[in-house]
Every structure is written in structure tokens, then in C-alpha cells.
């Protein structure tokens, strides 16, 4: 057996009120892709932050090769050849792509001047490997989230690393970009780099990893050889039970049309969009990143002014000047950017969850704290949110648990029309199933639901009908009976005009 590239032993890390890591041991070998799995809040990111020099462990040791090391800062980790691609984007949006990639290590040529020629040449080489369309000089703030993620990934390729940590790198990537990423990982692997790969997506895990280690509640639960295990076993280890991840077959009684959109356009973001959603129906919107789905959702939520077209609720036209209007009409939106749009990070969990209805709940002039706590308790329970109490600051929750707070917030509104944009980005398998059930359950209760997702299994699993979009236009609408994966792929790549054979 080869010596480990990296070895962690008995790592303990506590935060006030939380024992995030409770004696975790873990190692990665050179040329190995090692998956780290666990539910939201299990401690994966925390463990990696310990390895990346961001957190100092309370107990435990870290070895690089044979050498015990202490890492006080990210700088130290980098110096030891440990590269870290963070779960949350960690970029300076005002700087260029090249400057971000080489942040902290800009090449110079005397008097502290940046050697821009070399910087751009080096960057271009890396960008070429990643097959992206933007150049080294592009401002990162002008890139889509997916491309920003690619910039993060590019950083790992600037040095010859001993190990690279990918913390949910694919959460916002398209399939094409994922393929590139997996190629990059294969290259690294071939060079003998040890890779730690965190993801909630089973198919990826089984496609690229060699071993799988599982954390649960901050404790190490075991390591499996990927080749010798299956999804059920991993799931079992992660959440202590098996899951049923089948395709949607149940159908509810459909009611009247709740929401209808006629000929809606918004500049060149999307054009001539028409569709209807009935009570009891889940309509999935599937397409590539940039297809314009989010913009439609934003329009329906009063955040954008359409240039043409009409929006009808229960048959009568409405004007939505702001999210407040939309909410008053019974529309809710779970936005795609949880940190930027979904949460007030410095606020506690309960207050975030009840924010849209704080006025409605109020008794007299005062906030109804009791009722708010009850609402929190309800979704705390049903969404299995991991946090010691409602008083916890949302910013301290793990990524997936933050997402659950956002979902709970909008479910709690009991909306007429619920729009969810990438609802399970970063959510663990167990909770994902839970959220899917919730969405189906809402439909069963007579709500109209729109699900925007870039994950085909998800769309297939929850939708009664699927709207496929390409480049700002609807290309085709499928019912759940007729839809096939191939037809869907065609429809979202602009190929659907060609008659299917």
C-alpha cells in the first residue's frame, strides 16, 4: 500500500455550541480520488478547512507525507502543496480572472510591478485546459456563477500540488463543464496528486472516485472502496436508512389554472414565453445555464419589468411591481443565490425563516415571537435542519442547511404559486428526497409549483410537465409520460427543431 499523501488523525473541532468534528481520521493517497460524503452539516467543509489552514483543530494531527505539520494560515497549507477549491465562491469580483487565479502569488518583474504579460500567458494556459470561453483579462464580476466556479478551479492548477480539495465544485456547473472538470481531475490523478472530492451527487461519486469516506454528525463512519459498494450502502452509512429515489409517477387531481403567462418577453433575456400552471401541478423548467429561466422567475416575482406580454393569476391580469406585490398575490420564489438573495447571514435562523411574513404574523404592533418559533420548529423538524437552536446565526450553518432555511421560509408562506430555482443545490441526498416529497406534497395540497433545475433527475423526479428552454425561448413542453432523457437533452440544446427520428 502506498503511503498517504495526506493523513488526518483524530481531528476535533468545536464552535461555540457545536462539536463540528469529533475525532475524525482520514487519509488520501497520491493519485487517488477520495470522496468525502455526509449529510448537510456533517462536518465535511469544516474538516477541509482544517486541512486548508483556515480553522485550527482543537485536537488531532495532520501529516503531509510522513511529516507532521501545523498549519496556521491558508498560506501555510498552500506552501505544503494543499490547494483548496471552496464550496462558497471566494473571489474578488472587481479583479480580472488572471488576478484572481494568481491572487497572493502574482508574478513580478522588479519594483513590485506585476508582470502582466506572464500573468496572462500563464492564465491562458490554464484556461485552455479548462476549455472556457472567457479570457484572462475579464472581470470576474462579469462572469456567470458557473464560470466563476471555473475560475476557482483554475486556481488549483497554478502549482504542482500534493493534494487538491474540491468542496462541491459541481453545484453550479453544467454537464459540459462537469465533463471538463472530470478531465482535469483525471489529469491531476495521473500526475499522482491526491484528490479529495466532496459532493452530494451519487452519480459523480461513482463515476470518478476510488474510495468514499463518510462523516455523520462530525464523526467518522467508515471508508468504502467505490468499486465494491453501491449507492444504497453509502446512503445507509450517511443517514442510517435507505432511500427511494424513483421517478415521479403519482398524479394529483389538477385544478384550475393558477398562473398563466402569455407572450412574455424581457428584452433579449427571454422572448415570447407562454405557459400555464394549474393547481396541483408541478412544472419543471429545464435548460442550460443562461437559458433565461431565472429571469422568468424573477419577472414573475416582480423583480423585473417585462417588455411585453401578460401575467395572469386565477385568470385575471396582474401587475407585479415588486416582490412585495408578488407575495401579496400569493407568489413565492426560492432564489438561486442563497447567500446573496435568500438569507440575511447575520440574522438568526428563525427570523430569516419568518421574514416575509413578519408583519402578517404580528399580534397588534409587536412581532409574534411564539408563532414564529413554532413555524421554525415545524420546518426544523420536517426539513431536518441541523442547528442547535433557532438562535443560531444563519451564516454559521453549513451550506446545505442554509439552503433548507430558504426553502422553509417560502414553504411557510403557503403560497398559491411556488417557484423554486435550483432548490436542492448543495443538499444531501436524504434531504433532497425530503424536499422533493415536500414539493409533491404541496402540489397534492393544491398549490401550483414551478421547479427550475439544471439536474435532469430532479426535473424528472418532481415534474408533472417539463418545459425545455434554449437561449431565452421555450423549445418544447413534455408531459411526464412522454418525456425521455434524449428528447430532453435535444430540446435544451437547440436541436429540437430537427424532427426526432
Amino acid at each position, binding site marked *: 500500500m502506498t503511503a498517504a499523501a495526506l493523513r488526518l488523525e483524530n481531528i476535533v473541532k468545536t464552535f461555540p455550541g457545536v462539536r463540528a468534528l469529533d475525532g475524525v481520521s482520514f487519509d488520501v493517497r497520491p493519485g487517488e480520488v477520495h470522496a468525502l460524503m455526509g449529510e448537510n452539516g456533517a462536518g465535511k467543509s469544516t474538516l477541509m478547512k482544517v486541512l*486548508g489552514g*483556515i480553522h485550527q483543530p482543537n485536537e488531532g494531527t495532520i501529516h503531509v507525507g510522513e511529516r507532521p505539520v501545523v498549519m496556521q*494560515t*491558508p*498560506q501555510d497549507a*498552500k506552501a505544503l502543496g494543499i490547494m*483548496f477549491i*471552496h464550496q462558497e465562491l*471566494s*473571489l*474578488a*469580483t*472587481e*479583479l480580472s480572472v488572471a*488576478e*484572481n487565479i494568481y*491572487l*497572493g*502569488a*502574482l508574478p*513580478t518583474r522588479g*519594483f*513590485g*510591478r*506585476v508582470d*502582466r504579460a506572464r500573468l496572462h500567458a500563464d492564465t491562458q494556459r490554464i484556461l485552455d485546459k479548462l476549455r472556457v470561453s472567457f479570457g484572462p*483579462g*475579464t*472581470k470576474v*464580476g*462579469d462572469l456567470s456563477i458557473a464560470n466563476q466556479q471555473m475560475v476557482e478551479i483554475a*486556481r488549483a492548477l497554478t502549482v504542482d500540488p500534493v493534494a487538491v480539495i474540491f468542496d462541491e465544485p459541481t453545484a453550479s456547473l453544467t454537464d459540459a463543464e462537469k465533463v471538463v472538470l472530470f478531465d482535469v481531475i483525471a489529469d491531476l490523478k495521473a500526475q499522482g496528486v491526491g484528490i479529495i472530492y466532496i459532493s452530494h451527487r451519487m452519480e459523480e461519486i461513482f463515476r470518478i472516485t476510488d474510495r468514499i469516506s463518510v462523516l455523520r454528525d462530525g464523526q467518522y463512519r467508515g471508508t468504502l472502496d467505490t468499486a465494491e459498494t453501491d449507492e444504497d450502502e453509502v446512503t445507509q452509512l450517511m443517514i442510517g436508512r435507505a432511500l427511494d429515489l424513483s421517478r415521479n409517477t403519482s398524479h394529483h387531481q389538477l385544478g384550475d389554472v393558477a398562473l398563466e403567462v402569455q407572450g412574455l418577453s*424581457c*428584452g433579449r*433575456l427571454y422572448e415570447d414565453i407562454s405557459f400555464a400552471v394549474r393547481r396541483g401541478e408541478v412544472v419543471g423548467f429545464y435548460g442550460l445555464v443562461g437559458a433565461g429561466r431565472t429571469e422568468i422567475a*424573477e419577472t414573475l416575482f*416582480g*423583480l*423585473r*419589468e417585462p*417588455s411585453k406580454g401578460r401575467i395572469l393569476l386565477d385568470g385575471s391580469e396582474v401587475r407585479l411591481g*415588486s416582490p412585495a406585490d408578488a407575495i401579496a398575490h400569493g407568489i413565492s420564489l426560492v432564489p438561486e443565490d442563497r447567500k446573496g438573495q435568500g438569507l440575511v447571514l447575520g440574522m438568526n435562523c428563525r427570523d430569516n425563516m419568518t421574514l416575509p411574513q413578519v408583519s402578517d404574523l404580528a399580534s397588534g404592533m409587536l412581532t409574534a415571537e411564539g408563532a414564529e418559533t413554532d413555524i421554525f420548529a415545524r420546518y426544523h423538524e420536517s426539513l431536518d435542519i441541523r442547528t442547535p437552536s433557532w438562535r443560531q446565526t444563519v451564516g454559521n450553518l453549513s451550506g446545505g442547511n442554509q439552503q433548507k432555511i430558504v426553502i422553509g421560509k417560502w414553504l411557510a408562506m403557503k403560497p398559491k404559486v411556488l417557484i423554486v430555482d435550483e432548490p436542492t443545490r448543495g443538499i444531501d441526498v436524504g434531504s433532497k428526497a425530503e424536499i422533493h416529497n415536500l414539493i409533491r406534497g404541496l402540489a397534492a395540497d393544491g398549490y401550483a409549483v414551478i421547479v427550475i433545475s439544471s439536474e435532469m433527475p430532479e426535473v424528472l423526479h418532481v415534474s408533472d410537465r417539463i418545459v425545455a428552454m434554449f437561449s431565452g425561448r421555450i423549445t418544447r413542453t413534455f408531459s411526464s409520460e412522454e418525456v425521455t432523457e434524449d428528447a430532453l437533452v435535444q430540446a435544451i440544446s437547440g436541436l429540437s427543431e430537427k424532427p426526432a427520428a
Partner: protein
Amino acid sequence: MQPGSLSTFLKRGAIWAFIAVELAFFSVAGQYLSVTDTAFLDLDNMLLLLKQSAPIGIIALGMTVVMINGNIDLSVGATFALAAIVLLDSMTWPIFAGLGDWVIPISWALALATGVVLGAINGFIVWKTGVDAFIVTLGAMLGYRGLVFMYNGEQPTSHLNWTLIDFAEAQVLGLHTATWFLLGTVLVLWLVMNFTVHGRNAYAIGDNREAAVNAGIRVGPHMMINFMLIGFLAALSAVVFYSESGSVNPNDGTLYELWAITAVVLGGTKLTGGSGSVVATFGGVIAIQLLRKGLGYIGADTETVNLVIGLILIAVLFLDRQLNVKGRQELRT
């Protein structure tokens, strides 16, 4: 053109457009309202404008760097005064008695060093305690002012050295000494901010401090250097100004921090850090000085000057915003 650079140009353009408006307005209004015959746009008057922009201008340029870095420095006015005291007082120190006019460079150096030290104190506290720069420097604004008063009680500190004054009043190629320092500072900082690692890191830290930390930048020392830089520039401003005026009141420089910040923000630098430009700040400084000068030129009285300066600051922001509206498809947040 890279995406975003057109909007950047428009944004930066707002301040220059405003300067043009000011020039036009005061030229025309001056025809009717001014009691003097010299034109507002007279070359000498414009050269004076540059010179008179130097004291706040040099400070504002340093403030730009600190604000891009995600910090702020409210103690610059007091630093300005303390550096001035050291400048003027040290020229009379007995140990330098034999030096004749050679005391001048020494006094300059001592004054500049004072600024650097005061800046370093702020920077060090920000770095080591993690207390927000706003509070640290708000406290220092008081504390450094206390030091100013300790030095010479309530008395002004004065020393008239005519060699120095003649140097400071000199004009080379038409530009006053102060103007050369102002323009030199613009040039140097522009180079530093755009072409050096330190400059680029300053943007990165202001933009996303955590990202900078994760990328291994030593954020603490970096910020401390910028505080030393603004301390240096506040002192340079004092050196330039008091070389010519020869006396400092312990109250001098009060409110300079606010004017400097105003100029910086008018130039489009974000209060939250991460973006901004020293050249645009230069525009902001000129715009303010032009306003003061122009209002005097057309004979506005004190009440009106206060009222108008206030409202015009707001108007510039409004103009700036109008130029930056992305159109009807903007997300309404």
C-alpha cells in the same frame, strides 16, 4: 473593449462632466455677477485651482487607497496638523542650529516620518485588535488632536523660513510647487494601484477580504502599509502647505477627513472597498475646489455657499446614478 469598461468610463466620466458644467456655469454667471474683470477661465486662475486643490487633494488620494482597501482613515486632519508642527518646530531645534537652510530637508523628513508613524499606529491597531478602522481612526482623530495640543498648548506653532517659502511659492513650467506634488502623487499612486502587486492586492482585500486571506495574502501587514501610506501623504500635504504658510494652529485640518472622503466618493470609489480610482478622486477634488472658488467668484454669501455646496454634492451623486442606470431590464433590488 472589455465588458464593463464602457460603464466604468461613464461612471468615471460623471465627475469630469460635472467639472465641465461647473467651469461653464461660473464663466457665464461670472460675467453678470462678478465684480472683477478677470475671467474665471483665466489660465492663472486655473493654475491656482490646481495649487489650491493640493492640501485636501494629496490627502484624498491617500484616502482612495485606504478606501479601496476596505478601510477608512478619519484621523488624517490631526495627522496633518501634527506633521505640520514637527515640520515647523524642528527647524528651530538647537541641534540643527548649525545647518542653516540644510535644516529644511531634515525637517521635511521628520514631518513625513511623523505621518508614517501615526499611520503605522492606526494600522497596527486595526491589524492586531481587529477593531474596525472607522472606530480606530475616529478615536485617533481625537487622540492625535490631543497630541497636537500637548505639543504647544493652545498656541500656534510658527516658523517663517523665507527660503522655504520662496521655494514653496515658486512656479516651474507655470505650475506651482504644490501642484507638482499633487500631480506627482496622482501619477505615483496610479502606477502603484494599477501596476504593482501591492496595488492589485489592495483591490483584492477591499473586494473580498476572506478571499484574500484564503489566497494567502498577509492582510494585516498589507493594510498597515496603506495606513502608513496615508499617514505619509497627510504629512506630505502638511509639508507642502506649511512650507508656504509657516504657522500651524492646533485646530488646523479639522474636517479635512470629511472633505477628503467626499472627494473620494464623488470620484466613484465605493465606501465598501474593492473598487475606485485615484484619477477619479483627483477629479473629485478639483470639482470641490472649483465649487468653492466659483461660488466666491460670483459673490455668493455664506448661507448660500453652505446651502449650495451641500445640494450640489447630492446633485453630483444623482447625476452619477442616472449615468449608471443599466436600463429597464435591471433587477429591481
